[in-house]
């Protein structure tokens, strides 16, 4: 009863937020509502017994995407510009067409999902049954790094490609990223160092913990990487990390080292184990942990750099 009420309320809130994101006349409101929606999605994942996703959503959906959207919003809404300079909305009849189209889509998908019988067998069931062969105890980590390791490899490459792409299209260093710090004369808020002193070590610890726990419970390289990236964003925002125009060798290594390591171990599988991306008997857990460590960096750094809008970052303490 309460379960049902909770679900209905959650769904209602989620859809209401989504409608507001689209319908809200002020763009800033849309952005904030979208960030709130991210938090709500974390609760949705929690309700659907997907704590891994809730972790990822909390780190990426709420933290990183929010920061990215805010920075982009500011960049597209220049100072001194009065009013809402959005292009006029579609004429009413087109909006109606769009509504009909979207309605049809909703009806089609809804109809399809209601007619969908759960299959007797599924890849997931087999994954659970053969979890023991993977070398890790968490089924999701087993799927990500053993059964379907190539997806994970390709996906980290996607992130790398997005970084490469951003290098091509980014604005010049001075204008890219979140922008200059607002008011040097005013100095930094007195409490900022406190925040950093608590958040950064805690964040690193949490990242390490998530990385380590990926083997047996929710967590893993994604979540750990996302946490580190969020810390990077924080340090970039507070000026501890400064954007620079060149990627340092160490950064290059961090960006691709994990992928190279993953590929190399994967290739070695052809000789040392049964196939490419297979792990030698008894080595699976160790190698997976090793790969995940590399991937954590390969996820954290490009995300930070994408936010920063720069090719590299340099430490400039305080």
């Amino acid at each position, binding site marked *: 009863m309460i379960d049902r009420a909770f679900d209905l309320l959650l769904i209602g809130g989620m859809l209401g937020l989504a409608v507001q994101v689209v319908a809200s006349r002020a763009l800033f*409101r849309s952005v904030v509502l979208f960030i709130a929606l991210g938090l709500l999605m974390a609760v949705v994942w929690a309700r659907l017994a997907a704590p891994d996703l809730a972790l990822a959503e909390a780190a990426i959906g709420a933290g990183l995407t929010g920061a990215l959207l805010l920075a982009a919003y500011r960049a597209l809404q220049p100072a001194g510009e*009065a009013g809402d300079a959005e292009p006029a909305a579609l004429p009413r009849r087109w909006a109606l067409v769009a509504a009909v189209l979207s309605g049809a889509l909703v009806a089609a998908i809804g109809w399809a999902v209601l007619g969908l019988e759960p299959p007797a067998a599924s890849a997931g069931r087999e994954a659970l049954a053969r979890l023991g062969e993977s070398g890790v105890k968490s089924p999701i980590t087993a799927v990500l790094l053993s059964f379907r390791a190539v997806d994970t490899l390709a996906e980290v490459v996607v992130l790398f490609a997005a970084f490469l792409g951003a290098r091509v299209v980014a604005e010049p260093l001075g204008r890219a990223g979140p922008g*200059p710090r607002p008011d040097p004369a005013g100095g930094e808020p007195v409490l*900022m160092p406190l925040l950093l002193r608590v958040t950064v070590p805690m964040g690193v610890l949490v990242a390490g913990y998530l990385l380590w726990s990926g083997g047996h419970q929710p967590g893993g390289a994604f979540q750990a990487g996302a946490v580190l990236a969020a810390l990077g964003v924080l340090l970039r925002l507070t000026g501890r990390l400064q954007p620079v125009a060149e990627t340092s060798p160490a950064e290059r290594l961090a960006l691709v080292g994990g992928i190279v390591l993953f590929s190399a171990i994967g290739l070695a599988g052809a000789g040392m184990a049964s196939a490419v991306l297979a792990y030698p008997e008894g080595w699976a857990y160790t190698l997976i942990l090793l790969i995940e460590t590399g991937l954590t960096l390969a996820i954290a750094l490009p995300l930070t750099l994408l936010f920063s809008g720069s090719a590299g970052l340099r430490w400039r303490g305080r």
Partner: protein
Amino acid sequence: MYAVETLDLAIALFLLLNLLAGLGRVHHGPGAADRMLAAMLFGTTTVAVLLLLAEATALPALRDVALLVVLLAAVLVVAFTRTPRREEER
């Protein structure tokens, strides 16, 4: 223990209601800060909901999620206050 879990869920439900009510502030503003404030409420309440759900649905990992949310909530606020201000953010 059944009763306690139900209670946890009930409280989570109540908090969810609270949270959605707070969205009114995002809507009405009037200032950008008010909107962010509402988002903060969202953050804290979400943490509480997650903690309750962790207990109610026996998913201890949700506590890690809650920890992440509190840890990263500040990032958003910093992102909001530390980027150049614009005139119009209604």
